[in-house]
């Protein structure tokens, strides 16, 4: 059971402490933690489970904010970590992003949320929909209202009906004039291309996002045209397992609003939409760089927001890089970023230039890895297709919408 949760800013300041059980945890644990972060650097920061002399710590770092939870007894560590992730999701959802200021500004809400989300160290209500009904998120309207009226209560005085129902994710009986449901396929392509240009691995992680505004208690069924290509799946709690097991059909009562219905993975894809051909040659204290980017397989829709990023090796004194399309920036932490946007019809974008090595170095012996970003609207690159979406007990008018989007995930090209 978690005993305490601390929210630390990136300078190590304890912004919030929430004691969860009677055995309160002293703040000095944060000092211990921060001392170690400073002395051991990032490798300590990336350790999710830490055994300190007095407590076991779970840490999750999001947007520069460290969520630190303490326990003294055995408990599933993933439970602590997942919970912290959930807290950070809910907070960033409520506050419209996470940073030090926004947490301090809304500390009352953070406290109230934490109090609802966890009781005696065990998660209580973590469903965002229900939390929204219990504690109103701070929005412009309520802010203005609170300034004008001086009444700042954001705590609902009735218990959301959903807490009691057997579908705890759905608010009880919402009413809409227009019944709409939108289904988005959002895919991320992970790929690794090695030095020889061969595809080491290429897979797609996708999500089915649903935005539903349906009155009453709708029972939806979603089926795919080609479910067999799915390698593995994970579901929102609302999905019934049995229909999926028997017919590969998603049957569910959706939460109200937007949510992630399922996520899936499709492995062993054969090709990527883009090719990236880096050429690096190094001698005489210099390194010549030439990178070409082009379309390999036309997905049928335009490829947007193409970017290329790589970390310059530390032994480089200066870099002189130019491109025939898009802009090249070298950021403070020696990351070179090339923003291409769309690929023009008439030419192949290329980046070329030289890197000047440190004086005693004859040649560069290791080359950087290029990270590629892109976005394609309207296409699910995995080829997954939604067959149909049915609604039992259909209301008079139902508008259904489908969209798809693919973007690059961990898309790496090695050189």
């Amino acid at each position, binding site marked *: 059971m978690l005993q305490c949760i601390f929210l630390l800013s990136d300078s190590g300041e304890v912004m919030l402490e929430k004691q969860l059980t009677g055995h309160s945890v002293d703040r000095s644990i944060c000092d211990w933690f921060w001392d170690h972060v400073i002395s051991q650097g990032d*490798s300590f920061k990336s350790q999710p489970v830490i055994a300190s002399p007095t407590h076991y710590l779970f840490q999750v770092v999001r947007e*520069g904010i460290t969520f630190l939870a303490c326990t003294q007894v055995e408990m599933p560590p993933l439970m602590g970590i997942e919970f912290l992730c959930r807290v950070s999701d809910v907070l960033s959802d409520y506050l419209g992003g996470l940073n030090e200021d926004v947490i301090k500004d809304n500390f009352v809400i953070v406290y109230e949320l934490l109090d609802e989300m966890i009781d005696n160290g065990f998660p209580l209500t973590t469903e965002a929909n229900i939390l929204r009904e219990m504690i109103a998120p701070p929005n412009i309207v309520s802010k203005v209202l609170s300034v004008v009226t001086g009444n700042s209560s954001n705590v609902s005085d009735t218990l959301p009906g959903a807490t009691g129902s057997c579908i705890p994710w759905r608010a009880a009986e919402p009413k809409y004039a227009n019944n709409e449901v939108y289904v988005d396929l959002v895919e991320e392509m992970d790929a690794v291309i090695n030095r020889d240009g061969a595809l080491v691995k290429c897979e797609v992680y996708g999500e089915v996002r649903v935005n539903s505004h349906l009155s009453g208690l709708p029972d939806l069924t979603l089926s795919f045209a080609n479910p067999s290509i799915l390698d593995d799946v994970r579901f929102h709690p609302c999905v019934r397992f049995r229909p999926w097991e028997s017919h590969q059909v998603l049957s569910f009562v959706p939460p109200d609003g937007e949510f992630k219905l399922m996520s899936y993975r499709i492995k062993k894809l054969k090709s990527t939409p883009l090719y990236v051909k880096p050429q690096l040659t190094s001698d005489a204290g210099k390194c010549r760089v030439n990178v070409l980017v082009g379309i390999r397989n036309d997905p049928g829709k335009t490829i947007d927001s193409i970017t290329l990023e790589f970390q310059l090796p530390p032994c480089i004194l200066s870099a002189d890089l130019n491109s025939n399309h898009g802009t090249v920036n070298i950021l403070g932490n020696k990351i070179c970023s090339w923003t291409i946007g769309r690929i023009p019809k008439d030419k192949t974008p290329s980046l070329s230039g030289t890197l000047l090595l440190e004086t005693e170095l004859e040649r560069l012996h290791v080359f*950087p890895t290029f990270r590629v970003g892109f976005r394609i609207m309207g296409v699910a690159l995995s080829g997954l297709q939604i067959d149909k979406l049915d609604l039992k007990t259909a209301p008079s008018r139902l508008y259904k919408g489908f969209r798809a989007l693919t973007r690059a995930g961990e898309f790496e090209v090695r050189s």
Partner: protein
Amino acid sequence: MFPQFGATAETLSKASTMVFRIGTDAHLYDDPDDVSIAPLLDSKFDSEKCEALKRLLALIAQGFDVSNYFPQSTVLTADKVVKNVASQSLEVKKLVYLYLLHYAEKRPNEALLSINCFQKDLGDPNPLVRAWALRTMAGIRLHVVAPLVLVAVGKCARDPSVYVRKCAASALPKVHDLRLEEHTSAIEEIIGMLLNDRSPAVVGAAAAAFASVCPYNLSLVGRNYRKLCEILPDVEEWGQIVLIGILLRYVIARHGLVKESIMFSLQCTESSHSAKDGSDVDFGLVKESTDLSGTCDSEFLNTVSRCYMEGPDEYLSRSSYANRESFELNGAQFTSGKSNDDVKILLFSTSPLLWSNNSAVVLAAAGVHWVMAPKEDVKRIIKPLLYLLRSSNASKYVVLRNTQVFAKAMPSLFAPYFEDFFIFSSESYQIKALKLEILSYIATDSSISSIFKEFQYHKRNDLEDYIRDPDRRFAVDTVAAIGLCVQRLPKMAHICVDGLLALTRQEFMTKDFGFEDQEAGILTQVIMSIKSIIKQDPPSHEKVIIQLVRSLDSVKVPAARAMIIWMVGEYSSLGEIIPRMLTTVLKYLARGFPSEAPETKLQILNTMCKVLEGATGDDLWTFKKIFSYLIELAECDLNYDLRDRARLLKKLPSCNLVSLGLEEGTNDLPENDLHIVAECILGRQTRKVKPESFSYRYYLPGSLSQIVLHAAPGYEPLPKPCSLLLDDLNVAEGTSEMKRAADYSGTDDYGSSSDPSDEESASDYGSQRSVTESSGSDRGDDSEFISEGNDNADPLIQISDIGNASENQNGVSQSSPANLGELMSNRALESWLDEQPGSSNPGLPKQSQVRISSARISVGDVGKRVKQKSYSLLDPASGNGLKVDYSFSSEISSISRLLVCIEVFFKNCSSEIISEITLVDEESNRAFDSADKTAVVNESSLTSSDDVPTLVPMESIVSLEPGQTTRRILQVRFHHHLLPLKLALYSDGKKLPIKLRPDIGYFVKPLPMDVEVFINKESHLPGMFEYARSCTFTDHIVELNKENGDSLLVKDKFLAICESLALKMLSNANLCLVSVDMPIAANLDDASGLRLRFSSEILSSSIPCLITIGVEGKCTDPLNLSIKVNCEETVFGLNLLNRIANFLVEPVLS
């Protein structure tokens, strides 16, 4: 170090933040102290109060102690909340609760004041208010309120709102956390009830409570195991995590391990090793699946499963004593996963959870399959586990740590998925290192080439840029992993070695610009890996050695050089080419000797000796010359180690050489010794060092201990297989079975023959009623009749003897009709009682009535059998031979109603006379002036709210002869129901501190009354004045067995039960038995419906306290009692209830 630190300041300029901050609580956080908080708190406006509370919260958030506002904020605000709940906003309430919980432990007294407010809130129609009140109240953590909280929890556990029930479940661990032993059974009872709840949300919370309160009480789970399995997919994700673990433990404790699972295969391989007989038949299936899944490290699996079963610490300590076999699992502790429904249903209900969105649920479900699933089904956990690798970095690490063990135990399962463990450049070192380790476990002949390509890439890649610590380690790890891979797959040795050699050549390029740590480390590791590969099969790697030797010139890292030189010595006689090269190599080494590092120098000397040892013919001369040259150089080296080594070596081979030169074969004794010494120094390494001796600790998958690699507090290995016996379950299942039994009333154990008598007895209750009723006015007759009946041992007469001759003093009080007691005021009754100080068991009024389903009788002869329990106050050892025992007396104090009479027995166990024994109150050292004065003063002082414990001074014992026992009546006022009273005992002028423990059972006195009056009173004390608990009762079994033995005439079982129950009650508390209801419709063996009523009133306040005990269950089995107390004084009633439940459960003293 903190790149974002600067960023936040930069990106959000003050101006823009000001705009966003309007309407938020920013100013409160920034400057919580800028307004004085106290007046705001007292404000009558909600908004101002709210602001004050927010300021307090901000101070808490920033780590200031603002507990000094505690009384003001909680009490005042809470009070106001009470006064106008309707108008007060919930936000104020919520904020007060937040504040209160933060400081409740620091300021218990003030927190206590808010209890009333919570109690009111518990009755609020809004479930949210009820839930909050319960959560906060339970969070206050004060021993004093624990009974109240428990009642509140019990009530909320039956609340119509699911949310409130859920909060009730999560409040239980808080109560339990206070470590009140007397409440444990009540808590467990509520947990059992909540586990049986209809709503999955409640079940999840109840599972969490179960896991933290009573994880060993698996019989609670057994009762509704199937239901829990079925409800599992609907339970909330957090509850699922805990519930999965509980169900797993239950199945193992109940049925043992699964024969087809991984946990079993190793047991069988072990046994088939030891006895290679017909075991193939039995375990054919397992063998098949072992073949199916290819190689699996059975010894490793064995270790893992034993660690799961008994915890690594026990296992390791035992195995170090070479006593591994003591914990042998026999076949009976296994069950078949194919035929056992409980196992099947668990696997069936957990398998869809592998698709859960919550990684913790997936891992927990995977853990169940890992332990329980048949081997061929384990593979279904692989894909979900690998999918988890896409989740957040933090959980990725945890998942990999668990996967690491799985992969090591069953590499074949993961082998096809090797690509998933390829590394992305953005991952942290820990994750990369774990992936690498797993890759080296799961590499197969088919995948090694692509894995190897990856390795090479990564090594290069990570050499790339970072002088940073982690990545250097990672590159080194990669090279080590290559070595490991080859050790597992000797076939690939050539490819790998070629690759490694290529690496060494690459490294040479880098050496030009100085030795950086990272590269030196990598080069060393490369050579080390090559060395370990060569060691496996030296002859086939001859060329590799030659290549390495050739590269000596370019390898500058001392450690790496030393290793190559070592290889020269080690394999100096290998093959054709190496011996021919030796001369050149040694000459080269000798030439460069002075410029070498000490490490390398030592190795050159060693190698030289080894070569000399094996050398023959022409080369010998050359070698000897080189050797003596080297020795001379080494003897004047700066390093003393080197000088010593040189002298030693000089001595050794010179003898050897001399003998060689003179005549071969003369083996003198000293020479022989030297040979041995030489062997020892230069000999081949024969001892194999196990690489991962420390990581023999394995903990259950998904546990914290597995991550931190030590048993975290509260970690428990799997329970002993089949440790949960069916009997345990049956007791627990008693209630449900009882109901079933009641349904089939005809088919009981007694068969048909008992049925007529059953009916007969039932009808006889009726007839009896008239007799008793008629005799009600005439006591004498009645007693006569009863005694007669008792003599005849007639089973049909239910009414026991009241007017027993030995109970004369009882008779007086019994003679008072109950109605009289009602007519008299309490005060009058008390004074009336005072007139009979000797009456120990007043009031056993007889009542008998028939209702439709039950008969009412009275039980009389228990009075004489009532034995007061005696407690030890002072044992002879610590009291210089004086032994003091005490027992609570049912006498009523003549001085004040606040006093409790205690009978104290002083016994002199020593051989000398003890004189001047007296007991005084320790705290007030008031001299015991005179009894009269106290008696006069007492009435006023005691009733006032004086907190000083009081003891009516005891008549001191002048002297006590050896062996003599004296009895004194002590009148004590306990101020608290639970806390012991400190007294001082003076004997022979010495002072001995003693503690007198109160027994709440004697804080009451019997209040005789009629049944009608009782029921009437009871109906006036409903709702929050009524508390109930249940417990089991076993005393009567002994009684029944005894009677079965000595007489053929079966005494009525109900009567026996009534007697033993009443006896138990009356010997532990000062009560008055009002009536007994007997069931008549049910069969003879079913005691359900039996009900006993006791009445009493609280000594101090004369508030009546009514106790009703309902019985359920078969006569011959342990009975389930439901105890109900109706009393206006809540805390007292609760404490009394708990006390009763506790003593009823206690086994009878023989």
